C-alpha cells in the first residue's frame, strides 16, 4: 500500500508515549538527586537527568520494565562521572557550589561556606580517585537505592552488593584520609 501525505504517521515528542511519562514521574527526582551528588551543581544535574531520560527514550522499547530503574541509574552515574572527568571549569564549579549553599537560605558565613565547599571537593576528589566501579556503587548506595536496584544498575548479583559496598567504603576511606592528610 502506498503511503500518502495524509497517511504518514509521525512520532513526535508531543505524542510522547505514556510509558515514558510514567517512567519519568517515577524516577525523575531520584535520578536528579543522584546526579547532583555527582556533579554538585543544580543546573548541570538537571541537564544530565534530562539527558538520561532522553537516552531512555532513544533506547525504547529495549529496556525491560523490570530493569528500568537499574538502567536509568547506570546511565545517570555514567553521565555524572563523565561530566566530572571532563569538567574543565572547576573554579566555576566551586563558585557555583558556594552559590548553591546560599540558595538554600542557610545562614552560612563565608568560613562555613568555604569549609562546606572544601568538604564537597574532598568527597568528589576521593570518588574520582576510586576505581570507577566502586565509586559508582558508593554513589548509588548513598542515593538511597535498594540493593536490588544497585545490583541491576551495576549488573551484579544482589547477594554480592554487601561485599562490593564494604570494599568500596574501605577504598573511599583510604582516599579521603589521604586528602585530609594532604
Amino acid at each position, binding site marked *: *500500500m*502506498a*503511503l500518502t*501525505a*495524509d497517511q*504518514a*504517521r*509521525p*512520532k*513526535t*515528542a*508531543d505524542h*510522547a508515549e505514556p510509558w515514558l*511519562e510514567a517512567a*519519568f*514521574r517515577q524516577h*525523575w*527526582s531520584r535520578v*536528579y*538527586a543522584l546526579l*547532583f*551528588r*555527582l556533579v554538585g551543581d*543544580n543546573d548541570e*544535574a*538537571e541537564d544530565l*537527568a*534530562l*539527558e538520561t*531520560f*532522553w537516552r531512555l*527514550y532513544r533506547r525504547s522499547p529495549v529496556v525491560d520494565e523490570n530493569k528500568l530503574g537499574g538502567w536509568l541509574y547506570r546511565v545517570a552515574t555514567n553521565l555524572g562521572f563523565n561530566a566530572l572527568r571532563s569538567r574543565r571549569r572547576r573554579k566555576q564549579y566551586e563558585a557555583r557550589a558556594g552559590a*548553591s*549553599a546560599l*540558595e*538554600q537560605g542557610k545562614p552560612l558565613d563565608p568560613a562555613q561556606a568555604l569549609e562546606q565547599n572544601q*568538604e*564537597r571537593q*574532598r*568527597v568528589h576528589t*576521593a570518588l574520582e580517585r576510586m576505581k570507577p566501579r566502586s565509586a559508582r556503587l558508593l*554513589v548509588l548506595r*548513598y542515593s538511597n537505592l*535498594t*540493593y536490588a536496584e544497585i545490583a541491576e544498575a551495576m549488573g551484579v548479583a*544482589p*547477594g*554480592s*552488593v*554487601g*561485599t*562490593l*559496598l*564494604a*570494599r568500596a*567504603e*574501605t577504598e*573511599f*576511606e583510604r582516599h*579521603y584520609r589521604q586528602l585530609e592528610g594532604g
Partner: protein
Amino acid sequence: MHLSDGDLRAYLDNQPGSLTIEQARVHLDACDRCRSRLELVSGRAEEISHHLTNLSPTRQAPPVGAAFAQLQVRITEKEKTDMWKKMFNPRYRFAWVALGLLVVLGMALTIPSVSAIANSFLGLFRVQQVTFVAVNPGDLPERLGSSSQFEALLSQSLQVEESGDTQAVATSAEAGQLAGFAVRLPAELDSQPELFVQPAASATFNVDLNRIQAILAEVGRTDIQLPAEIDGAAVRLDLPAGVSALYGSCKADLEAAQQHGYDPDANVMLSRSDCTTLVQMPSPSISAPPGLDVAALGQAYLQVLGMSPEEAASFAENVDWTTTLVVPVPRYGTTYQEVIVDGVTGALIQQAGDFEYMLFWVKDGMVYALNGPGNAQMALEIGNSLK
C-alpha cells in the same frame, strides 16, 4: 567461620548477603569477634554516609511536570537534528566495492529516473522505517547532472572518509567479526555467497547556502526556499561497516556489462540475469547542529523531487524525519507496497514490466536491502529465511 565484611555490611542495611539476615543475626549473637568487626564496619559506613550527605541536593528536584515538558522539548530538538543526511557524490556510490553505501539510498537506486536526485540530495536518518513518496521529477536529474555549480558543490563541500578497503571474506563468521555484528544469510538461497565487508565510512557536508540557491536557480527552481540557518552547518553522516552477500552471477554480470561500456558511475541500473544481493549494516546516523528547521529542509527536498509546495508542506509536516527513510519513487511505472518480512514491516518496490525487486527492511537496528530477479513472493521467501 566468621562473617565477612560484606555480610556485615549487608546486615547493617538489613539485606541478605551470603547468609540470610536471620542467619547473620544468630551468628553475631554468638560471636564476639564478628560483633567487634560489625562496629568497625558500621562506624566506617556512618562516617562515609556523613561525607556523602554533603553532596545531597541543595534544592528540590525541579517539578516533574515542568521537567517532563523540558524533556519533550529536548526530544523534539534532538530528533530533528539527528536526521540530516548529506549530499553524496554518485561516484562514491556506484563503485561495486562501495556497495555497502548503496543501502542508504538503495531502493531509490533501483529507479533510474530518480536515482540522480536520490543519490545527491538531502534525506533522512537513523533509519527505523521507510515510507514512500510518489514523485514526478521530470528532467531534473539531467539538469542537475549538467550543473557546473552542482559539481563544484560536491567537490568543495563534501568530505568523505572511508576506513580501509572492502575485504572479501570466506565465511559469514569472518564477515561478522570484521563488521562487528552477527551476519544473517538467507537459508532460501542454498548456493555459497561471495561475501564482502565494506568498511565504515563517514561524510561531512558543509552547507554552502549561496551555492545551493545558485544551483536551484540554475535548474529553474527559485520557488524552493531553504532556511537561512543551514548556511555553514556541518552535517555528518556515519555509515557503520556493512556486509554484502552476492549470490549467483553478480560478478559476471558486472564484468559483462563493463565490456559493453557500462559506466559504474552512471545512474543506470545494471541488468542482472541471476544476481541476488543482500546488504546488511547497522543503521547509519546523522548529526547536525541544533536549530535546523528540518521540516523546511524536508519540504525543499520534496519539492526538488517534484511535489508542489502545498503537497510538500503537508507531507513534510507528517513525516518523522528522524527515523524514516523517505524514498522517492516515480509516480508512474512503479509499484511499491508495505510487506511483512522477517517479522517486521518492510517495503517492496518493483518496476512495472521488470522481473526484479528491491526489498528493504529494518530490524533490531540493522538495515537490510535485498535485491534480485524475481517477483514479490520470491523476494519474501528469501527475506523471511534469514538466519
